[in-house]
C-alpha cells in the first residue's frame, strides 16, 4: 500500500533528478509548482512549446524543475526576457513564474509595461511577503508592521496590492489565491494558459522558515491556518479593495476580459506591411 509502486502522476512534467527541490519544508513554492504542473497536465499542453522563465529568488528555481524549455534570468528581468522570447516565436506558450520582490521591486517597471502592452505572457507570482532566499528582507509586498531582517521594528512601507496593480496596468486576467486554495489556483492557471494576452495570477505562498518565523507563524501549517482564517472569496470584486491585512485576504478572480495581445497586433501589422511590400516587388 504505502510502498512506492508507481511513478508520481506528475513526474513526467518534472526534470529527472531535480526533485526533491531545494525549498524548505512547507514552502508554498512547492504547492505553486504542483498547481502549475497539475494545470499543464489537465490541459495536456505540448511541453515542447512551453517555455518557463523565472527570475531570481527561491521561486526562481522553478524553471529548473519543469521539464520544458526554461530560462533563469537575472534579477527582475524575467518579463523583459520573456517578451523577447514570445515576440520572436509567438507559437511558444511563455510562462513567467517569479516572486514578489523579483516581479514588483527590481522588476516592477518591466511588469507594468508588459501588462500595458498586453504581451502574451502568463505570470504566476509566488508572493511570500519577503525576500526568502537572501534571508528574509522587507519587500514590496511585506505587510505593514511585519518584522523582517531589514524591518526589525516592524515594516512602515505600504505594500503593493498586486491584483490592483496588475488590473490597473492592463492585464486581461487577474486572480489571487493562497496555496491553501491550490485547486482554485490550478483552475486559474489553466484559465490563464488558455487565454491570449497578459495574465497575472498571485499565489499567496507560505514562507514558514523565514517570514513565518519572524511573524509568529512557525510552521507552514500555521501560515495555512492564517490563510484559512483570513481568506474571503470575492471574485470580481473591486481589486482596489483587495488589500491584504492580517485578518483579511481577499481571494478570487478579479479580471477576465478580452483584449488583442501585443504579439497578435504586431504580427498582423507585419503581415499587412509585407503584403504591401510584396506588391511593390511584383
Amino acid at each position, binding site marked *: 500500500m504505502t510502498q512506492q509502486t508507481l511513478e508520481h502522476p506528475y513526474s513526467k512534467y518534472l526534470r529527472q533528478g531535480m526533485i526533491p527541490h531545494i525549498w524548505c519544508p512547507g514552502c508554498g513554492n512547492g504547492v505553486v509548482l504542483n498547481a502549475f504542473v497539475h494545470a499543464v497536465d489537465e490541459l495536456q499542453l505540448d511541453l515542447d512549446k512551453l517555455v518557463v522563465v523565472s527570475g531570481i529568488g527561491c521561486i526562481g528555481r522553478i524553471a529548473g524543475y519543469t521539464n520544458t524549455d526554461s530560462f533563469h534570468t537575472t534579477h527582475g528581468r524575467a518579463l523583459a526576457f520573456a517578451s523577447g522570447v514570445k515576440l520572436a516565436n509567438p507559437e511558444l506558450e511563455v510562462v513567467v513564474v517569479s516572486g514578489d520582490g523579483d516581479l514588483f521591486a527590481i522588476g516592477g517597471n518591466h511588469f507594468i509595461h508588459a501588462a500595458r502592452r498586453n504581451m502574451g505572457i502568463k505570470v504566476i507570482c509566488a508572493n511570500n511577503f519577503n525576500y526568502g532566499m537572501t534571508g528574509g528582507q522587507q519587500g514590496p509586498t511585506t505587510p505593514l508592521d511585519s518584522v523582517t531582517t531589514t524591518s526589525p521594528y516592524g515594516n512602515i512601507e505600504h505594500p503593493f496590492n498586486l491584483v490592483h496593480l496588475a488590473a490597473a496596468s492592463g492585464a486581461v486576467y487577474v486572480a489571487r489565491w493562497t496555496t491553501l*486554495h491550490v*485547486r*482554485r489556483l490550478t*483552475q486559474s492557471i489553466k484559465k490563464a494558459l488558455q487565454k491570449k494576452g497578459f495574465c497575472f495570477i498571485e499565489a499567496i505562498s507560505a514562507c514558514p522558515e523565514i517570514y513565518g518565523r519572524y511573524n509568529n507563524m512557525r510552521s507552514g501549517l500555521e501560515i495555512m491556518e492564517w490563510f*484559512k482564517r483570513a*481568506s474571503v*472569496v470575492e*471574485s470580481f470584486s473591486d481589486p482596489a479593495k483587495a488589500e491584504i491585512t492580517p485578518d483579511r485576504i481577499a*481571494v*478570487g478572480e478579479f479580471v477576465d476580459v478580452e483584449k488583442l495581445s501585443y504579439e497578435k497586433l504586431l504580427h498582423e501589422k507585419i503581415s499587412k506591411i509585407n503584403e504591401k511590400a510584396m506588391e511593390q516587388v511584383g
Partner: protein
Amino acid sequence: MTEKKELEASSVEEEPRIGVYVCHCGLNIAGSVDCEAVAKFAATLPHVVLAQDNRYTCSDQGQEGIKKDIKERKLNRVVVASCSPRLHEPTFRKACEDAGLNKYLFEMANIREHCSWVHLYDRASGTEKAKDLVKMAVAKAALLEPAEEIEVPINRKALVIGGGVAGIQAALDLADTGYKVYLVEKEPSIGGMMARIDKTFPTMDCSICILAPKMSDVGHHPNIELLANSEVAEVKGHIGNFTAKVLRKPRYVTKDCSACGECIKVCPIVAPNEFDVGLATRHAIYTPFAQAVPATYIIDMNLCLNKEGVVVCDKCMKACERNAIKYEAKPETVELEVGTIVVATGADVFDPSVLPNYGYGKFMNVITSLEFERLINAGGPSHGHLLRPSDMQIPKRVTFIQCVGSRSDKNGKLYCSNVCCMNTIKDSLLIKEHWPDTEIYVFYVDIRAYGKGFEDLYQRARKAGVKFIRGLPAEIKEDKRTRNLWLFGENTLQNELYKVNVDMAILSVGLEARKDSEVIQRLLTLSRNQDGFFLEAHPKLRPVDAATGGIFFAGCAEGPKDIKDSVTQASAAAARAGILMAKGKVTVEAITPITFSDKCTACGLCTKVCPYNAITLNKDLKRVSIIEAACGGCGTCAAECPFGALTQSHFTDKQILAQVDAVTECDADKKVVAFCCNWCSYAGADFAGVSRMQYPPNVRIIRTMCSGRVSPKFVERAFARGAAAVMVTGCHLGDCHYINANYQTQKRVEKLWKKMEQNGLRKDRLQLLWASAAEGEKFANKAREMKGIVESVTSEEIEKARKVFEKALKND
C-alpha cells in the same frame, strides 16, 4: 391623521344639536317600553333639539325623516334608540351621510336586544333602562367627532410562503389572475408532501404525475418569481403594503446548471436522501427528486468538503460542462414589496419514535406511512417493490396501525388528522393491486370515510379482503430471529384480545403543526390554536383569512387536510387576496387611536401591548406614531397609556366616561356598569335578547370594540360615582378578534382586584366574563348573579369605593 385633526377643529366651534329617534320596532320595543315617555325624556337631555318616537325608524320614511331633520333642523348629531348597532348602525350611518352629516356623528342606543326583549314583563324598569340607555347615547353623541376613513393603496403583488401543493395552487391562481407572485420555498424544490406520495385517494391517480405539471407551470410562469431554498426572515408593514425580507440560501450551483447529472456521478460523498425519508441515498451535490423545480442542482454544504471557498475536492466542478458550480456562493437577502400574503407552510408528520410500545426506530420492519409511500412508489428506493427493510423480501402479511399520533392527548395529538384513514385504505388497495394475496390488517379507532367517493373506496378495500379490526394494538413485539412482528391488543367490537403475527407494520402517522410555525407566527403576528395550527379570522365566515389584514391561509398550515381540500382552500385564499388587490385600495374604519404628543413621554408601553405592532416609538421626538392601516382598532393602547396621551377615535376616554357618568347619575348603587366587546360579549348579550332570555334590568352595557379598550379608569370612575358593581366582558382568551388584546384586559382587571382587596373592597363587585357571541345564556346568568351581588353591597361599601377611587372623578 392631519386631515382628521382639521375636522376636529372645525367641529369644535359649533354647539351640538342632537336629534333623538326612539323606535317602536312595531311592538318589539313598544311592547315592553314606553317609547313616547323615552322620547319625552330624551327631549330634556342637554343639546337635544329634537326627540320623537316612530314605529319603524329603519323604514324609508323613518330614514327620510332623519335626513329631513338634519337639513331643516340643522342637526349635527343623531341618536337612534332601537335595535343593536350590529344590525342597523350601517343603515343609519348611511342615512346621515346622505344628508351630509359625517357618519361618525351618529350613535345608537340598543333598547331592543338589551332592553325590551330581555325585560318583556317589567315595562316600568324596561322604560327606565331605555331612558338610561338613551341618556348614555346622547351623552356620548354630544362628544362625537367627525372622522374620515383613510384609504390605503394595495400593492398588487402577492407573497406565497410555502411551495407545497397549496402554495403552488395559490401562486398559480394569483399569477393567472395577472398578479405578480413571489413563491418562497424553504426546501431546494417545491412540491412539498404531495411530491412524495405515490397515489392520491380516492381516485388513485399518480400523485407526482398530476403535481409535476403544476410545478413546472410555477417554474415557467411569467408572473411567478420562485425563490426556492429561501426563508422569510422579516415581514414589516401592513395590509396592502408589506415588506418581506427573504433570505436566499446559496445553492452553490448557478442557473447555468442543465441538470445533466454528471456531477453526482463523481461526487464522493454519499448520504441519506431526505426526500425518500432516508430510504435512499444521495450525494453532497444532488437534486431532491427527478421532477424537482427548480431543476438546478444544489450542494449540501454540511456534507461537501469545500467549506468557505477552500476547494478540497473539485470533482463536480470539473464534471460540470456549464461551469455552474460556485462553492463560494454566499447567502443573499432580497426585499419584496407585496400587498397580500398567503401562508401555505404545510404540516409535519408525527414522529412515532416517541411511542416506545410500537418500537419504531427499534424494529426494522416497523415503518411510517410516509416511508411506505416511498417504498410503494415506482420512483422510490425499491422501485415500487414493497420490501421490508430487514431482509428486502416482499412481506406476506402487512398491518396498518391507525391514529398514530392522532386522537390521543397522551400518545400525540387529540385531534383527528383527517387524511390517515383514507390514506391507509388507499395504501392497502395498492398492496392488493400488486400482490393480491397479501394479508392486510388495519387496526383502527373509527374509519372516517366522510368525503366524496371515500366510502366507495373503503368498501372496495373490504371487498378486496383487507381486514379492518377495531382497537389499536397495545404493543408490538419483534421476533428477534425472523424480525417478524407480534401485535397485541383488544378487538373492541368482539371484546376479545388479539395476537397477530405480521411481516411488516405500517404506522399511519398523523399530521402536526410544523415545528417552525412559531417563526411565521411571530413574523406575521398571527395566532394559532391549541394544536399549533394557524387560526382563521372566523371559523365559518372567514375561514381562509388571518385576523391580520391582508394575510390568508392555504393548506395544512391552517389544519390537517387532504390534497383536494388544500387545493380548494388555496384557490379560496388566492381569490380573497385577489379581491383586495383588484380593488387596489382598502379603507380602514376611523377608529384608530389619536395621539396627543404633548402628553406622550415616549415610555413605549403602548408599543408593547399593540397586537399589530402598529405603533412605532420615536425616542428622540419623544412621541409615538401610529400606522393607521396596520392598526386593528382594538384600543388597548389607549387603555394602557398612563398619561392619557393616546385615545381611540369614536371610543374616546371622554365619550366612554360620559357614558359611565350617565349611567351613574342616579341610583348608581343599584346598577351594574357592563363593558362589552363588539365581537363576542356584546353579540352574546344581543343573542340573549334575540332568544328572549330574561335577566334583571339593572345592567347598563357600554360597547367597546375590544375588552382591551377598557381602561382601569373607566371602572374606577364607575365605582367613584357609586356604582354597585362593574362587569368587564370579552371574547374567550385566544379567540380575541384583535389577536391577543384581551390578555391585557385580564391583566388590568387582576390589577384592579388587587387594588380593591388592598383597600378592603369586595372584589366580586368587579366581574370579568369571557362570553362568546353564542353564549347568551352565559351572559344572562352572569347578569342574574350580579343582581345578588348588587343587593348584597352595603351603602358603606359604596361610600368606601367612592373614597378609594375618588381620584378617578376628575377628567385627567
